[in-house]
């Protein structure tokens, strides 16, 4: 896989950098966060992203997309992660689109074109407990003629509070905790019997709980085959894990750079605090760890587009490593800022909160260390 970006990916990254600095600096995040609306979401910004073509980056050209690949969209997410840009880009353009690509041609035509043109918003309802576990699925879909009736609950649905369409992982057979018997459906968020409750997360990332009470869906809305969606889920999760690692890398880099600047300007005991060896060594260690993260992320995001056969392990490598390093940096950044680090006025605390929630998305470092070991044969 490549360890350097190609021209196209660099172009996308640069335009996202420009977008984030001009349209969504952290002041934008604060404005939306502090407004009265339920979700941390600004439709105007979202429509601008749509008009830049970002929602179509993973969409095949026949449905109006650009097919620029996982590395392309991930490079954008990395830059947006730097300024904590609130948007449903990850849940829609990465997770949602990757899932819908496995749906029937009719569904693809219907949904993907709208995602590209109108910014139709997608979300993926999979989690049912307080830790990521893609086989722990008990939300049930019972066959009823040519329909299915869904009953059960989902939690931590990213951007679920204002999505237009919900893709839900259900059990159609088998026992909770097994890979067989899982099916995927796509349905409207305002379907009868579906109650969506936005949950306010500590970092204002949008998430929601969902309750399905006898929600009727047609079998046409199945993504993949009945009982056999696990493989699709796992492959989409890996793309998503790599992409969210890129976003987390962006946030970690920004938190680190803010801190480095602070070390160069803050004075105590008559010296810049950055001249103290106790802080210098920790800064140097963080620098080294970030260099390792960059390599993991780029190797992982390019592996999908280049048809590598180690994408699963690289996704876990990336999510585990970046998760740990973002964790470290978020803690150290606050500590190195001293008192102002724990004030809401300074941005650095926002990254601490963002780190913890992002770590949980599709598996934390413990989950992925375990998976990495399994995939490596021990």
């Amino acid at each position, binding site marked *: 896989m490549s*360890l350097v970006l190609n021209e196209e990916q660099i172009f996308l990254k640069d335009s996202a950098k420009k977008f984030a600095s001009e349209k969504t600096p952290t002041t934008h995040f604060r404005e939306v966060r502090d407004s009265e609306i339920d979700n941390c979401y600004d439709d105007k910004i979202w429509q601008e992203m749509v008009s830049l073509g970002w929602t179509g980056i993973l969409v095949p050209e026949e449905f109006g997309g650009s097919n620029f690949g996982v590395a392309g969209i991930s490079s954008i997410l990395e830059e947006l992660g730097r300024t904590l840009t609130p948007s449903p880009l990850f849940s829609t353009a990465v997770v949602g689109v990757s899932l819908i690509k496995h749906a029937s041609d009719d569904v693809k035509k219907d949904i993907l074109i709208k995602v590209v043109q109108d910014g139709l918003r997608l979300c993926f309802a999979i989690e049912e407990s307080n830790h990521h576990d893609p086989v722990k699925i008990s939300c049930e879909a019972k066959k009823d003629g040519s329909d299915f009736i869904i009953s059960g609950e989902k939690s931590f649905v990213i951007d679920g509070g204002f999505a237009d369409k919900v893709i839900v992982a259900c059990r159609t057979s088998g026992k909770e905790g097994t890979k067989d018997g899982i099916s995927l459906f796509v349905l409207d968020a305002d379907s009868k019997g579906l109650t969506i409750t936005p949950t306010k997360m500590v970092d204002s990332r949008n998430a929601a709980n969902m309750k399905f009470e006898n929600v009727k869906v047609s079998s046409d809305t199945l993504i993949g085959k009945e009982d056999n969606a696990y493989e699709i889920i796992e492959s989409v999760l890996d793309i998503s894990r790599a992409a969210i690692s890129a976003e987390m890398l962006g946030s970690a880099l920004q938190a680190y750079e803010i801190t480095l600047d602070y070390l*160069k300007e803050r004075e105590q005991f008559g010296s810049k605090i950055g001249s103290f060896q106790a802080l*210098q060594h920790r800064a*140097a260690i963080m620098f*080294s760890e970030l260099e390792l993260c960059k*390599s993991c992320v780029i190797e992982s995001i390019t592996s999908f587009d280049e048809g590598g056969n180690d994408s699963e392990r690289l996704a876990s490598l990336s999510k585990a*490593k970046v998760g740990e390093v973002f964790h470290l940096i978020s803690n150290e950044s606050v500590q190195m800022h001293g008192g102002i680090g724990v004030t809401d006025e300074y941005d650095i605390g926002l990254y601490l909160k963002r780190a913890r929630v992002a770590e949980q998305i599709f598996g934390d470092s413990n989950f992925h*260390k375990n998976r*990495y070991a399994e995939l490596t*044969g021990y």
Partner: protein
Amino acid sequence: MENLDQFRKETKEWLEENCPPEMRKPMGPGDVVWGGRNCKFPHPDAKLWLERMGEKGWTCPTWPKEYSGGGLSFDENKILQEELMAIRARPALSSFGIWMLGPALLEFASEEQKKKYIPEIVKGEIRWCQGYSEPGSGSDLASLKTKAEDNGDHFVVNGQKVWTSYADDCDMIFTLVRTGPQEPKHDGISFLLIDMDQPGVTTKPIKLISGKSPFCETFFDNAIVPKENLVSELNKGWDVAKRLLQHERNMIAGMGLGGAGSAKKKKDQTISSGMATLAKTYVGEEEGKLANAGLRQKIASFDINSHAFSLTMKRASEESKSSNSGPSPASSMFKYYGSESNKLRYELMLEAMGTKALGWEGEGFGPAELAITREWLRTKANSIEGGTSEVQLNIIAKRVLDLPQ
């Protein structure tokens, strides 16, 4: 691309014809060929292999042809290394001349010096060692006291160096000496090439906590060094020294490689982790998982870091490919991470093997087990030699992050 394919084809053919069968067998500890005036070859084929590779300049594949190097491009060298690996060829020559001195000479030496010394390194005719540290100058290397006094057409050198690896088997030593006692410490140091075959130079081996070691003390007692052996200008040796240390650090960083990450997964091949395999042998497994959950978690962390590190080494090499800039202050990052990682590797082996990795000699332990005990102790020096981990972090802080002094 076509040219590279052609190059691969020719390389393959040449290696097939010229790499003796004996040189395709795994190496034992005594099989390294270091070159030098009194070079010991483990087998007549090793001599033949060195002569052939040296003749082509492929002991130093990317060095310029005019100094007998291979003159290969980055991509050609990559192919050569791949083809050497494919037939499991032993390195024809290992030397500090290749890893450290040569690159510094190419950058800093005069034309005459390059013409004299570089071909000798390529062909393995002269074996070099490094005279940097002194008993009172470790991390604070620039405080070194070994002095060289001007005596007309030559310098007279007096003082002591320490940690001079293999000094007792070497022909020449590249040395940092004080030539400007009145100057600020960094500005009074020169870089001298000293022939060890003279009465004024003596060596004495050092025994380490791991037992016997290649390290020596080297004493200069009115050693005579011709003026033409000064590299770069008088009192400008620190620039050469720093550059050479970066090469040394890159070399040490490479020791941190290995583990699950460096093994590239090929089609339909399952990947394995050397550490996990070792641990399974000593700890056992349950349903395919390493039986000790705590150790398994530690090994997974280690493998992940080691995988990430090897990707980073690769990334740095791809990035430098276009700029052709050689090592940078970021090589301190590699030295820091690589040596810390290698220490951790051995700590984990000890943890996995329990008392089996704690034998010193004799009955009750296999030779591989006894070797691990010694190697574990030896790794403790990884984060000390070539600049301690703390010194590397200082360099990153100051020269990469630009933090205030």
